[in-house]
């Protein structure tokens, strides 16, 4: 198991390292001179000022030197300063990251809480009207874009019924964005859980457990559920990355003050240090989640834990 986990941690570190390279190159991926573009909309910027910004970003140096400088600052925990406002990027991100994480976790919680039982029920009643109805709803849920579902929820629960606030950053404000993000993912979990459970229910070991005369409820709980949840756990890791991505859209709809909203603003303002910091932070979070999921997997599956 330790070999398994150390491999995963090494792979994660490699992923993050590759991200640092890409992030350095990112600024040059834009056609034309990045600093010129940055200031294209602002009036009265003198060539001297542009030269100053270029130097402060290190863009006048060769790319390998830029990378070395970037890494040197990075290991000291310095992601640079924002172009508008000049605050340390790390502070700006750390201030908002918890909001995004709370949103993603709440959405994950909703997705699993709704999706897994629905999938389990559909598998148990495979081929019945219940199964078909649930799966049609699930497909509808997967097909629904975040921005549309978000606006609909906003319209009914906040505007029409007035039960929940339209925007802001309190706990009540969390409900709608988390539901938006959670519901469409619940549909994915429902479908995966269903197919995985059906697969397990047809296994010889489930038949064997029944042949021992165990009550059906015990067989489902002990023999089916745990083995059937293994793929769901893997999916949780993958979906978490998608949820972080989905958060960008949802945060903007509900004016939720997370890193996603910050990133969109930074993109509009061509604030490269923030964009770089955002991508890097994002990749670190995704890698950490992936490693956590692998560890969880090892706990659930003795074939990995004891090898």
């Amino acid at each position, binding site marked *: 198991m330790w070999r398994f986990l150390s491999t995963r941690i090494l792979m994660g570190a490699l992923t993050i390292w590759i991200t640092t390279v890409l992030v350095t190159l990112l600024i040059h991926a834009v056609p034309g001179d990045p600093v010129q573009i940055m200031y294209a909309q602002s009036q009265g910027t003198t060539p001297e000022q542009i030269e100053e910004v270029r130097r402060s970003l290190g863009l006048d140096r060769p790319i390998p030197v830029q990378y070395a400088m970037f890494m040197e600052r990075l290991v000291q925990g310095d992601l640079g300063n924002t172009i508008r406002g000049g605050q340390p990027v790390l502070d700006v991100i750390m201030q908002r990251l918890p909001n995004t994480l709370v949103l993603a976790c709440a959405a994950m919680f909703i997705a699993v809480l709704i999706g897994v039982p629905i999938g389990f029920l559909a598998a148990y009643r495979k081929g019945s009207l219940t199964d078909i109805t649930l799966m049609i709803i699930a497909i509808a849920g997967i097909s629904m874009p975040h921005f549309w579902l978000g606006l609909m929820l906003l319209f009914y629960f906040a505007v029409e019924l007035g039960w929940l606030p339209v925007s802001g950053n309190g706990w009540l404000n969390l409900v709608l964005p988390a539901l938006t993000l959670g519901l469409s993912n619940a549909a994915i979990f429902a479908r995966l859980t269903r197919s995985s459970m059906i697969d397990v229910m047809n296994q010889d*070991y489930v038949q064997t457990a029944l042949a021992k005369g165990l009550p059906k409820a015990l067989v489902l709980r002990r023999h089916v559920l745990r083995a059937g949840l293994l793929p769901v756990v893997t999916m949780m890791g993958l979906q978490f990355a998608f949820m972080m991505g989905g958060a960008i859209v949802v945060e903007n709809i509900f004016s939720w003050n997370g890193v996603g909203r910050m990133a969109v603003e930074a993109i509009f303002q061509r604030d490269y240090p923030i964009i770089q910091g955002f991508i890097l932070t994002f990749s670190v979070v995704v890698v950490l989640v992936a490693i956590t999921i692998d560890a969880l997997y090892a706990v659930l599956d003795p074939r990995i834990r004891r090898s």
Partner: protein
Amino acid sequence: MTALLSVTDLSVAIGSKSLVKKVSFDVASGEVLSIVGESGSGKSMTAKALMGLLPHKASATGRAMFDGMDLLAPEVQPPRGTGIGLIFQEPMTALTPVLTIGLQLTEALVSHGICNAGEAQRRAIAMLDRVGIPSPADRMRQYPHELSGGMRQRVVIAMMMLLDPRILIADEPTTALDVTVQAQILDLLREIVTDTQIGLILITHDMGVVAEMADNVLVMKAGKAEEFGPVQRIFAAPEADYTTALLDAVPRIDASTSRKPALAEPLLKAGGINKTFAKRGAIFSKAARYKALDDVSLTMHRGETLALVGESGSGKTTLGRIIARLTEADTGTVTLNDTDLSALYGRELQDKRREVQMIFQDPYASLDPRHTVGRTIAEPMIIHQELSRSERSERVHELLEKVGLNADMAQRYPHEFSGGQRQRIAIARAIAAKPSLVVADEPTSALDVSIQAKVLDLLENLKRSEDLTLLFISHDLAVVRQIADRVAVMRNGRILELGPSAELFAEPRHPYTRALIDVAPVPDPTRKRGKRPVLQGDYPTGPLSEIGPGHWVAA
């Protein structure tokens, strides 16, 4: 003797489709009933109906009297576990992978209220000991994947016997196991029947197993009982034509063979082949590799059939794949007609590949389901020959007829064919490229016996008409005896004995060869033997030395 279980007119149907038709039989205490039949005969459905474990939408009618109740009556819940136990074919999948052996052994005792957890633990350890599992207390904490197939099947048997059933149904309990392990499991089952006087229903397709185990036999075909009677009578004077046909189709390890190895020039020479594979999950450590082949050499002569025999993990498939160059050897050479195949790459290799073709075990997996049969068979010709489109399609038709199918089947897709027909298609594909050597890896082990006999005949005929040399890989000594001119016995990546078929079977010189021949079930109930010898201790695995003309044994 009064019957423990008395089944009358058992029928199973899904909707209007009848799977089992009015089957009747009895099982008495201390008796073994074999239900024998080929795939689709309804033998497993019969067992599931008795357990009340039929698939969704299937329903059973008839009477099955057990312990004063009718198991098939709608209001009756069959006494699963405590009255009747059930063992499945595949020990690898019969235990829940995420739960410990201990929990799986004890949970039913506790759930049935037979005893408390502590007592269940004690009984489970005693039962593991009884079924021959070493250090049983340690096993309780292990997970299924940490045990071998044979050990797992013992665990499943222990799991069922703990509940003290009166009847045990074993559905092909040894089919997935190696012959030496099969012998041990069959011995164990027989001991249990003698000691506990339970009734054993043994479902199998293997007439050898029937002959060795059964007191009574029920022969089934397409859901119907062909005949039911004592084993001696069934084998000596079968009443149903189907039983006669089934018995005739069974290859016999004790059959006489008049095969003489052809003394032709060598076609293929494999020398000093080594191959190691990484163990699963080992990325960083070089030590965690196991040797699949350990310095193996052999020569094949033009026109002969050489059989590679061994149990799982012996390296026989790896050797076959290296000869066909589907797998690269770590070291060693494979020379075909004086060309070193192992040194060829790119275009040259592709040209030479025509010479060696392969037939795989599972005809369900080896044909592309999205290609028509005609396209599958034509493909090697497209790659290797410059035939026009019309010439190719003519040749496809010719090949289809050669393997006993109809030319007009070329337009169909694999799913429209039975397992035996698919294997014929795979054979047609193999000979389409006009190879000189065909490597057949367990080509009949996924097939029913009656189909197997026909496919073996086909291979035999094609070998002559197409001037082929055949490398036949198998775990089944009886089949090998029927088809091979020479036999190489492999274990743990080494050839232990290599010799002419007749001599090797008549006078096996290596202890492992002897053990393999001893444990193979013989379809003759009059030859019922006692406990079979188990191969123990060390045996020679050194380099081969010649002890007779063309007969080599590891020293």
